[in-house]
């Protein structure tokens, strides 16, 4: 099926989120043959954990959660100087509830989080509640020099349905009086916040290959047709992801919240696909053992529910003897005492700005957990003691450049609208009767 301009329907759907706006949304409505159920009138059963997505997302045959395919990050600045007032809090909550009433909370429907930066909490006289580890963003490798994102807030919208992401965005901007047949409130999120940046993306089988034409420097004929990510391999295996429990803040007023790190990584796919061969891609993404033993078929669906890193030799040994180490192999070293990974990846690819990139969004109990994981991925310890270079043969560091980094707190649902730095203990019991 093609539209009047000759753009195949599926082609249109994936770039629509990148384009955004009312026209893209209307166009989507006509093209996506899907009825998205509306959300409930009473939202009181929604979990305190904004990041509790896994229970409503589909899983593959191996039990891996299938990440929602269409994504949007809205970077927002609070319009008011100083501390937020209750009116603004009510407006934010009302606007968010508007889109939650319009779309059910599911993979086909809408998943969302609202998060706040250290810069936002600087407006309060009190420091952020103890027990929340939320430092300012910083460079996380000796060889990177990223810009730092310091908006007040970031809203993450996710769905397997492109029109849901676009419709939710339009409603939050006050451009929809009804959404999915549901009346929208008179207030807009953008009455309270100004939009400073809009980042879009996708993840899922086949989407990178289909989006390759939107970005310069993507060898379109090289990204495998079934790969969920530009680099050609599956990620987010169940056993390589922290559980939602593991990343949840356990105590204090922000209990049931989590922290979120978002980096923008630019990808160099020319070297990856046109210069390296399949052996090198497998060795550098996973480990040399996997490449030597043909462990990975295609994008790696055959690996099941883990990247099978236990089969790889220790990273330092591989570095010394093979001169190359894998990304998964290095990263898997960052684990807690119970052998759990520290971070929950909810990253996705992007063609924002016409370049192939990865919005690496990760949730963890403390930002320190992310820093530790990235440190393991840097492999600085390995490079000092082996033939592995700072980037060369060092996992996928040769092919990614950290352009931007930002840290955020995803508060519990009851505090998602302009939270104070030191919420009262009973804050979580506050309800919004108006909904």
């Amino acid at each position: 099926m093609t539209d009047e301009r000759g753009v195949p329907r599926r082609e249109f759907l994936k770039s629509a989120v990148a384009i955004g706006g009312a026209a893209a949304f209307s166009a989507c409505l006509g093209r996506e043959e899907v009825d998205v159920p509306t959300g409930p009138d009473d939202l009181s059963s929604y979990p305190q954990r904004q990041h509790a997505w896994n229970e409503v997302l589909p899983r593959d045959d191996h039990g891996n959660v299938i990440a929602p395919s269409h994504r949007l990050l809205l970077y927002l600045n609070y319009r008011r100087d100083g501390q937020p007032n209750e009116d603004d809090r009510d407006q934010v909550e009302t606007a968010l509830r508007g889109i939650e009433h319009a779309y059910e909370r599911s993979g086909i429907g809408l998943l969302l989080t609202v998060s706040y930066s250290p810069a936002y909490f600087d407006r309060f006289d009190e420091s952020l509640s103890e027990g929340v580890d939320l430092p300012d963003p910083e460079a996380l490798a000796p060889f990177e020099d990223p810009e730092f994102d310091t908006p007040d807030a970031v809203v993450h919208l996710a769905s397997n349905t492109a029109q849901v992401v676009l419709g939710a965005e339009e409603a939050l901007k006050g451009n929809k009086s009804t959404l999915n047949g549901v009346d929208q409130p008179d207030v807009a999120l953008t009455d309270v916040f100004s939009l400073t940046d809009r980042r879009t993306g996708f993840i899922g089988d086949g989407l990178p290959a289909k989006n390759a034409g939107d970005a310069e420097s993507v060898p379109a004929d090289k990204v495998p047709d079934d790969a969920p990510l530009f680099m050609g391999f599956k990620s987010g295996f169940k056993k390589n992801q922290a559980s939602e429990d593991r990343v949840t803040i356990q105590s204090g007023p922000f209990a049931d919240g989590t922290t979120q790190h978002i980096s923008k990584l630019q990808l160099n796919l020319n070297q990856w696909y046109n210069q390296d061969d399949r052996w090198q891609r497998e060795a550098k993404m996973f480990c040399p053992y996997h490449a030597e033993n043909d462990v990975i078929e295609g994008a790696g669906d055959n690996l099941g529910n883990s990247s099978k890193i236990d089969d790889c030799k220790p990273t330092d040994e591989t570095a010394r003897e093979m001169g190359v180490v894998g990304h998964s192999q290095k990263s898997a070293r960052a684990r807690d005492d119970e052998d759990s990974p520290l971070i929950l990846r909810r990253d996705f690819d992007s063609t924002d700005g016409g370049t192939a990139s990865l919005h690496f969004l990760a949730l963890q109990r403390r930002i320190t957990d992310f820093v530790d994981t990235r440190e393991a991925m840097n492999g600085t310890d390995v490079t000092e003691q082996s033939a592995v270079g700072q980037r060369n043969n060092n996992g996928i560091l040769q092919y990614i450049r950290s352009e931007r980094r930002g840290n955020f707190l995803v508060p519990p649902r009851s505090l998602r609208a302009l939270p104070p730095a030191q919420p009262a203990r009973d804050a979580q019991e506050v309800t919004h009767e108006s909904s």
Partner: protein
Amino acid sequence: MNRRDVLRAVGGTSLVGLAGCAGLFETRSARAPPLPENRPDAVYYPTHYEGMKMPGMKEQGGYRCALTYSYAHRFWLMKPNGITKVEIQPEDSIHLMPVVWETQTGIIPPDINPQLTITQSRDSIDQFAPWPMLSQPMGFHFGDNAQLQSDGTYTVEVSIGGPSTRRTGSLAENQGNASFTFEFEFSESTLNEISYTDIPDDREGTKGAVDLMDMEMLPNSQVPTPNALPGDVRGSGMSGDAKFVVTILEDASRFGGDEEQRYLAVSPRTPYNRTMLPMMSLSGTLHRDGTSVFDGILQATIDPELRYHYGTTVADVQTGDELTITVDSPPQTARHEGYETAFVDMPDVKVTL
């Protein structure tokens, strides 16, 4: 589909019908002639060698950076059990080489991997981290083939981060980042002014190497001759056509040891040109009267006097000690023609001190 894909889709094996962008193609086969037959497992004379141009040089933060380029090259990437040949792609227009060196010593640090960003009128053209490479005329350098779309002015930003290889002496002080921006006037006619020297058929593929280029204003990536190395040079050995020179320094305090300890340094280099051989995993054992007195890794280190080398502190070294150097991984640098068959299969080196 971007320009590269258009070219690939249209190109295939046929060059017919590409008259509009024929310039790149006409020269391509000429610049990548068939490899010599029966290449030795050693350094050999390549089919040809090329000059280079330097559009500019900048200085910042204790480093200098020269932007240099030549014709697009074929090269090889290393694997644990072989090499991968990287062919020139149809859209590759030049081989871009940012040469960064430490101002005081003239040392080109192989661990500081530059990042390149190429823009034209603020439009992104390309961004990549060039590979660490070994070439006979250029020595050790970072380089990769780049895709400039046509004649014009390009902005090339070269950014470097902190080091990841141990540094000693005055070099240990500079841990900073730096960035160098060049305005680069590119034209195919200027590119074609770069020298291209064919090596006679009876010479190509035979053991030997073309000389390092005489690069005015640029440092080279050589290590000292044995006579010029500090300490007491106690011997040398060959492996995979590389020469390993062993020297013992009296005082190991600069290298993490103390004044009473010795520093055992191994300085590998290419034959003929004395180019450093970085990015190896080396280990060593020291035997005295049949007993092991040292067994451990030789750590890659950059020192103002020893320059790039591998070393360890030891309690003592006595005449007659047997040193065995094991190459756990050969140099993981990419290779230009003439170096791809050497420094790959590297057996132990035994030196009696």
